């Protein structure tokens, strides 16, 4: 193999990972920091989220660097190369990022004026809701008070598939539990699932997930973003589990709830809308290699993390 071949191979590889050719410093920094976010911050999921979102920020600034330089504002102090400084309209990366940013803005507007402003029944016509039991509303309110957040609405969904999820409608959050969950889990296990959802609200996961997704849309032309977005989601799931344990004061119930949900050997009907936060993934990828794109971590990994917490 001659060195010319190797060189072009390297360029193709970096193009695939971080986009069009750019100074080696920037490429290296992006790759190293994303690896570091996953490897170094193994146990602090907050730090991991900050690092991953930081990479998104770096990628965004770096993508619109030519515009910034043109405005006399070189945020990343490296020479950006002739293809981006002087040929503004030829730089595919810049152009694609600008298109992506417009798309992300449109998505944000669409979300802001969509379901978020409707009432529950209008927002989810395919679901039927029944009056929640007093017990369910009470445990939602109690756990929200323990977590120190404004109590969300408790909703009971008329469905036999065991799952729990949170949605935002009418400007407020609702925690939905299916009858299938109530009838197949014990009371403390149901509470643990609710605590997991409350933990998502306490950790502001709706905002963080939206930030990650909008960044991914803005940076749609950079393959790295398709790895970072699900990584943010997974970090938030782990963090929600940790917070849920703090809220309920014990990991046992959550561990047994998750293992019961994991034992379910058939795929439940997906009733939760795509923009809801579910307690666990209803359709995990079968192949381990594809799990890096899953937005929920393996239930096994979550259970083993909770068991480790219990030991400490």
């Amino acid at each position, binding site marked *: 193999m001659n060195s010319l071949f190797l060189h072009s191979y390297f360029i193709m590889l970096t193009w695939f990972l971080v986009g069009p050719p750019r100074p080696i410093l920037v490429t290296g920094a992006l790759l190293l920091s994303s690896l570091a976010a996953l490897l170094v911050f193994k146990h602090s999921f907050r730090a991991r989220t900050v690092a991953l979102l930081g990479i998104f920020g770096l990628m965004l600034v770096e993508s619109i660097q030519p515009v910034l330089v043109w405005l006399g504002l070189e945020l990343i102090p490296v020479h950006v190369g002739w293809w981006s400084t002087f040929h503004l309209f030829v730089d595919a990366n810049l152009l694609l990022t600008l298109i992506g940013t417009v798309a992300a803005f449109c998505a944000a507007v669409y979300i802001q004026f969509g379901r978020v402003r409707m009432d529950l029944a209008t927002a989810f016509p395919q679901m039927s809701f029944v009056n929640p039991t007093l017990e369910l509303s009470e445990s939602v309110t109690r756990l929200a008070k323990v977590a120190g957040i404004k109590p969300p609405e408790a909703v009971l969904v008329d469905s036999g598939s065991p799952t729990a999820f949170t949605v935002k409608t009418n400007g407020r959050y609702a925690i939905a539990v299916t009858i*299938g969950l109530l009838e197949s889990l014990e009371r403390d296990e149901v509470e643990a699932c609710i605590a997991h959802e409350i933990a998502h609200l306490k950790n502001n996961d709706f905002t963080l997930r939206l930030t990650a997704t909008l960044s991914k849309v803005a940076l749609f032309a950079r393959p790295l973003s398709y790895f970072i977005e699900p990584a943010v989601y997974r970090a938030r799931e782990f963090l929600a589990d940790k917070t849920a344990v703090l809220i309920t004061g014990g990991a046992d119930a959550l561990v047994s709830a998750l293992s019961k949900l994991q034992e379910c050997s058939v795929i439940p009907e997906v009733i939760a809308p795509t923009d809801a936060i579910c307690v666990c993934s209803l359709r995990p990828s079968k192949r381990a290699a594809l799990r890096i794109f899953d937005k929920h971590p393996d239930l096994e990994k979550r259970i083993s993390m909770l068991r480790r917490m219990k030991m400490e």
Partner: protein
Amino acid sequence: MKLANLRPHQRDLKFALGDLEAIVLRELWESKTPLSVKEFHVQIARTRPVAVTTVATILDRLYRKGIVQRKLVREGGPHYEYSAKFTEDQFKHEIVDNVMGTLLHSFNDITVAYLADKMSNDRKNDTQLSKYLDRLRPK
């Protein structure tokens, strides 16, 4: 009733249902009273290891297919009580109706010719024919 994913190489109920679905439906026919998911789980777990979440999901799936009916009961924590919608014979009749309907729709003339041929062949054997006719008569 919605029947999808027919499995021509499987026999009996498994022709139209998944393995677990068939077991759950049999259990439902055997029981005289409506059953909750937990009661089902106790019954089925005697013969095979299966999670309660799996039972709940299977029953929900059968309900969505329109094969079983359920009632929401609020006493003692909200839960469903499942009961059969069809007897075993009615259900099997539905399957045959479903399959024959599809055949008649897709290959109308050939199917009719085949059935006529089959019937005339069977007429030579009177006992066989009367057995068929007995089954075809509505109950």
